[in-house]
């Protein structure tokens, strides 16, 4: 849930990158850190083990300040994917405002995707969030690899869900990462605007929200 503190006019939102181990969640975040050039961007905090596996989580804070003085923060988290870190996943997932589910496109990883998705459903339930109401994007990563499930097949399979169309990405190469993020911002905006009247009170309409939070180096703002 959004964390609004009226005394400093600060609104903090939380987005969690969820998915099976090694699907590319940390890589997504690292790419966002280097590709994005939003108004305000903090340090990427990586809490990892020696072999680069996420131990607790990664966190990247970004933000913007509206003319009305609203200090809007977005904290992007990843969770550790390995089974044994379930309690950490639950702690990170609690009070999330949006989720990016990073799936691994490789044929051999489809079972792991399904298990992780089931785990997401369980944990959302446990922390009191409704998967159908929560803004969420499902990304199929590692499109650069040869043995991946065909995109048309994936899109068809997910067509009947609230998460269609799927986002395709190669986080390693940096493609599709910003697009995924923008789709999430789009879905996130609706609920936040309804609750805090971003457009009316703070002059932040949908395009501004998406554009200013996902401005990237070189490329034009959306």
């Amino acid at each position, binding site marked *: 849930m959004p964390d609004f503190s009226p005394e400093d006019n600060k609104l903090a939102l*939380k987005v969690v990158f969820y998915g099976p181990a090694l699907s590319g969640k940390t890589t997504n975040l690292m790419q966002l850190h280097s590709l994005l050039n939003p108004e*305000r*961007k*903090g*340090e990427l*905090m990586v*809490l990892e083990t020696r072999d680069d596996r996420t*131990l*607790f*989580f990664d*966190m990247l*804070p*970004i*933000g913007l300040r509206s003319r009305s003085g609203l200090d809007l*923060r977005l*904290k992007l988290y990843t969770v550790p994917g390995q089974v044994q870190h379930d*309690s*950490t996943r*639950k*702690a*990170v997932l609690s*009070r999330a405002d949006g989720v990016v589910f990073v799936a691994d496109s490789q044929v051999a990883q489809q079972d792991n995707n399904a298990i992780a998705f089931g785990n997401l459903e369980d944990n959302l339930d446990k922390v009191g969030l409704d998967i159908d109401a929560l803004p969420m994007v499902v990304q199929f990563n590692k499109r650069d690899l040869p043995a991946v499930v065909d995109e048309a097949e994936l899109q068809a399979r997910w067509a009947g869900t609230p998460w269609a169309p799927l986002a395709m990405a190669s986080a390693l190469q940096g493609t599709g990462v910003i697009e995924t993020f923008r789709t999430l911002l789009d879905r996130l905006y609706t609920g936040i605007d309804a609750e805090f009247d971003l457009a009316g009170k703070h002059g932040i309409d949908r395009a501004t929200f998406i554009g200013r939070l996902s401005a990237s180096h070189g490329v034009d703002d959306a």
Partner: protein
Amino acid sequence: MRNFEDDPTLSDLLTPDQLQRLSNGLSALCRAPVVISENRAGDAVPVEFNLETVGWLSGGASAVERGAAAELVSFLMLFVAKYRLAANIHHDTTEASYAELQRQNEALRASEAKYRELSDQLQQKVDEQVAVIRQTQQELYESARLRSVGHLAAGVAHEINNPVGFISSNLRVARDYVQNLEPLLPETAENWELLEDFHDLLNESIDGTDRIASIVADLKTFSSIDQADNALCDLNSLLRSACHLVQTEHDHRLNITENLAELPRIPGHPSRLSQTLFNLLDNAARAVGEDGRILVRTLADNTGIQVIIQDNGCGIPETIRSQVFDAFFTTRPVGSGTGLGLTVARDTVRAHGGQLTLDSQEGAGTRVVLSLPVQQGS
């Protein structure tokens, strides 16, 4: 409690000592002393961390020095905060796991308690069933024994009845013959004495056969062989037969006083009632020994009849009084009885809708009151 992800303040990240040490180090590097605080001072520049201004740095010889020092502090904060975040989430998840563990433990304990209770109940049910089975088995055994003893007694009684009958009537005819012979014999003192003796012999024999006949009659009453399982019973006659049989068992040495009122007949199972009365009398006989007294009384009013068997024997010690109805309890030497007397007696009385009460005082005697309703059931 604060969330692990809440933005940390300067004092969350560094202790006053550490902050002092940091200021000292920076002061030594700069050309003028440097101060870090949570409050903004005149020339202070913000120390930022994660888009958050965590403190203010003032002093130094120039804006460049202040800027560089603030940047260095921010850089340090990153690692301090990393540790802090990791520690916080570790703490949170450990606590959550522990709480979960406790919940599971609680649930486990609750279900364990439930199962224990269930198993206790099961054990109790099994015990009850075992008791019922054992009881039924005993009763079955007892009634089978009773039946075979009854049959034997009835058979013997029947076989004896005929010869005793003709012996008795022959003896009476013989007595008449002797009387007829009397005037025909020469009147000598010797003959007269012979005849007198002959008379006595025949009279004693007739007495003997009468006694045999009455024992046979008692046996027949006791075994109730010629009665249906359910018949109208005359308790007084059952009681008299039982008394005679107990006397026979104890070589006619018992001092039994009968004081029987007129009783209405009651519907019942004659042979089981006989066995019951016999058991009670036999208990009394064993309690009194050689020179005690047994008083047998019957009473009737419009609700029911009572049979009271009272003895002035050894009584039943208080400590075992509650056990006397236990199926296998006996105070007699092993082998002299099954201990079933009172249990079977009580069950029989209950089956007739009545009640058996026992009143005893050690050393003074025992009084057993058997109450039976006149009208059974309804």
